[in-house]
């Protein structure tokens, strides 16, 4: 079943939801939010797009293979633990850099870690979702 209204709306909603998910990711440190829920929202955005436009369109707009997104997420999360080793601290100690730029402020490895979680959750959800969706394909 193809709905023009849903298909049109989903194009705008996708962008909005993705922005919202990044917003959730970034504010996670101080307010409710974080990588996990951010990733889920992003996945929901693609899920909506997939419901409206079908699996091929969703895959095209995602551009990356969900499995690769999982791998990226894990890599980023692990990479975020390396600066602490480089700085000679205990493994996984958070390292913060004060950029001094207004609005951005301090940037630290926990954010990077959260970003990894974000990608990972997105990747996992989409892997499962897309695999299931492609089930009935010949």
């Amino acid at each position, binding site marked *: 079943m193809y709905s023009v209204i849903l298909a049109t709306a989903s194009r705008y909603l996708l962008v909005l939801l993705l922005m919202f998910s990044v917003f959730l990711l970034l504010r996670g440190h101080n307010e409710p939010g974080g990588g996990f829920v951010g990733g889920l929202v992003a996945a929901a955005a693609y899920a909506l797009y997939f419901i409206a436009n079908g699996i091929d369109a969703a895959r095209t707009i995602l551009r990356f293979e969900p499995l690769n997104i999982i791998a990226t997420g894990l890599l980023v999360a692990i990479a975020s633990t390396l600066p602490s080793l480089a700085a000679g601290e205990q493994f996984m100690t958070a390292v913060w850099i004060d950029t001094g730029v207004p609005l951005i402020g301090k940037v630290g490895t926990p954010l990077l870690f*959260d970003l990894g979680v974000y990608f990972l959750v997105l990747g996992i959800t989409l892997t499962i979702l897309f695999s299931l969706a492609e089930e009935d394909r010949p």
Partner: protein
Amino acid sequence: MLYKRFRENFGWIAVTFPLFMFFGFLSRYPQIAAGEVIRESVLWVPSLGINFSFLLDGLSLSFVLIITLIGAAVFLYAGVYMKAYAQTGRFYVYIGIFMTSMLGLVLSDNMLLMFVFWELTSISSFLLIGFNHHKESSRKSALQALLVTGGGGLALLSGIILLYRITGSFEISSFYNMNGIITSHDLYPPIVILMLIGAFTKSAQFPFHFWLPNAMEAPTPVSAYLHSATMVKAGVYLIARMNHEIGGTPLWQDTVLVTGAVTMVFAALLAFKQTDLKKLLAYSTLSVLGTLVMLLGIGSKLAIKAFFIYLIAHSLYKGTLFLVAGTLDHATGTRDVTKLGGLRKLMPMTTLTAALASFSMMGVIPLVGFIGKETVYKSILELEYWGTFLISAAVCANAFVVMITLFVGFKPFWGAILPTPKSPHEAPLKMLIGPAVLAMLGLLFGLFPNFFISTMLEQSAESILSETLSLKISIWEGFNLVLLLSFLTLLLGGGLYLVRARVADRVRKVSLPALVRPSAWYDGAVEGMLSFARLQTRIVQNGYLRNYIIVIMVTTVSLASFVLYQSVGEVSVAPDFSITFYEGALACIVLVATLLLIISRSRLKSIVALGVLGFSIGIIFVIYGAPDLALTAFAIETLNVILFVLVLYRLPRFLKLSRSSNRVRDALIATSVGVFMTLTVLFASSFELSSELKRFFSGASVPDGKGRNVVNVILVDFRALDTLGEITVLAIAALGVFALLKLKPGGRK
């Protein structure tokens, strides 16, 4: 990668690795010779007492030098020999792993570290035996070796842990002076038995010997390196290393002595009916390993001296002979000794090398093997009680070894030329250098024993017995009983060789009854284990998801409610009936949704009901001030519904599959789980929780974690390691789902 580019001459490149190690360690020789002990230590898991601590003393240096020297010969040799095989690059990786772990084994001071290396040698041995993995016998032998040595490794680990309970440390050097405490402890007998099982399986002592001849399936360089010169000596090394710490008691000495002696004789007898070059050598290796173990069991000064000389001599000549056997195989295409003969004209260098090594193996003056055998006899004769019996056993066993030597070292080269599958030719230079150098060393060590061996012997004895030997090694001690015995051995061996040709056919037909063949025990044990595993799998893993869930639920509830029931008197649950409007409304929604979920006859309705349930729970989180949880719950519920719909699409029409009795059972289980959870929550909330964690996290969140959202700071900073673990598990789960859905039998992508 490097291998591909330098395929032709890779042997030369590879050989630099062991040679570099050899000279590196040789440079420590003066230090060790002066009685110094070098230690290096890096903390690994200090809280468990596991450290990378290494120790270099006389004993380990001797082993290191043997390992690297023979390693160099074998690496070079394999450069040519392995060309016929596919995936030679892999071979070098395996054998490199082996050499490194073997070095680690003899150098570690920490018992757990040693155990790790111990297992690594088992694994690399497994990989190397199974190198021809397309042959079934290779795979079977590899598995057999792995199971036997791995099982022994587990026994060793248990022994190590028991030992830890007595000493409180894993460092070998730290219980140097604790012999009295250890041997008088209640746990001492199990420790000795477990450790010895470990050592005996590794060194292929009776009744674990059967894996070694089968391990001859490996390419010849591997047999030469792992299964004669180094890995099988690991067990011997362990016994020698632990001798001072936990030895000295009748239990230890007698077990070691008897096992060694039995292996020595038994293996020699078994060799009688073999005709394969490598199998013959393998049985003689077994016999020698038995002798070495027996010498450690005797444990006198002289015995240790004999042990040490014999160890070096054996490594040198057996490595050489294996390589020669490989050369013969390479050149002629057969390893059956009865089909070889008269090759001396065609392969002069190999003949010479083989002869040198063989003389050493037979114990002919003036090679190092002669000194070895002389001292062995002498140390046995010293024994009062067992002396006569053991010396006849030793002479017998050695006579058989002499016979084997005649077969392997001389038979192929002398006499009439016999037709072979390939036309024989002299081996290339790279295959000659290694064995020739080793054989020459055997001669040099024999001619100048004091220069080469004495110092290391002194230091090793220090490690084994913690006494100085002050015994001179000399090659000529005049005409005496020992020399007579040596001659007797040679004569007997020659006689056996002649006799064998006549009775061989009859002997080959005799096969031992299964009861006295440990390999039959092994087969039985493996078979039994497999059928038990099948039975267990049938019961536990029946393939029905609902049964798994039932088992999990019932087990949890029954176990946990037992605990709950026991502590029921301690708490009084005071129900709080002050409900707000929202809470009441939510409860109603939840109840209605649940009811709908159960009685609905359409799947879609059930899913919608499930979604409603999830969202209501999310709202509960909101009411109780957990916005993070609520947010996540909403997101997950949304996706859940989508997923369910996708799955639903694939399911057949709704059918009433379960019988009513099943439904009653399910309802009972579900209700009991629900009641149990409610009670647990009530129970938990009736305690005043210690708020220390809460205070710490709330307090530390902003200054240390630089964030005001405590939950998130905990997740990504304070307990980030946990999160890392969780996301890894999630990723693996996703891969599992992907594999389940995408990879189907039939190859549809």
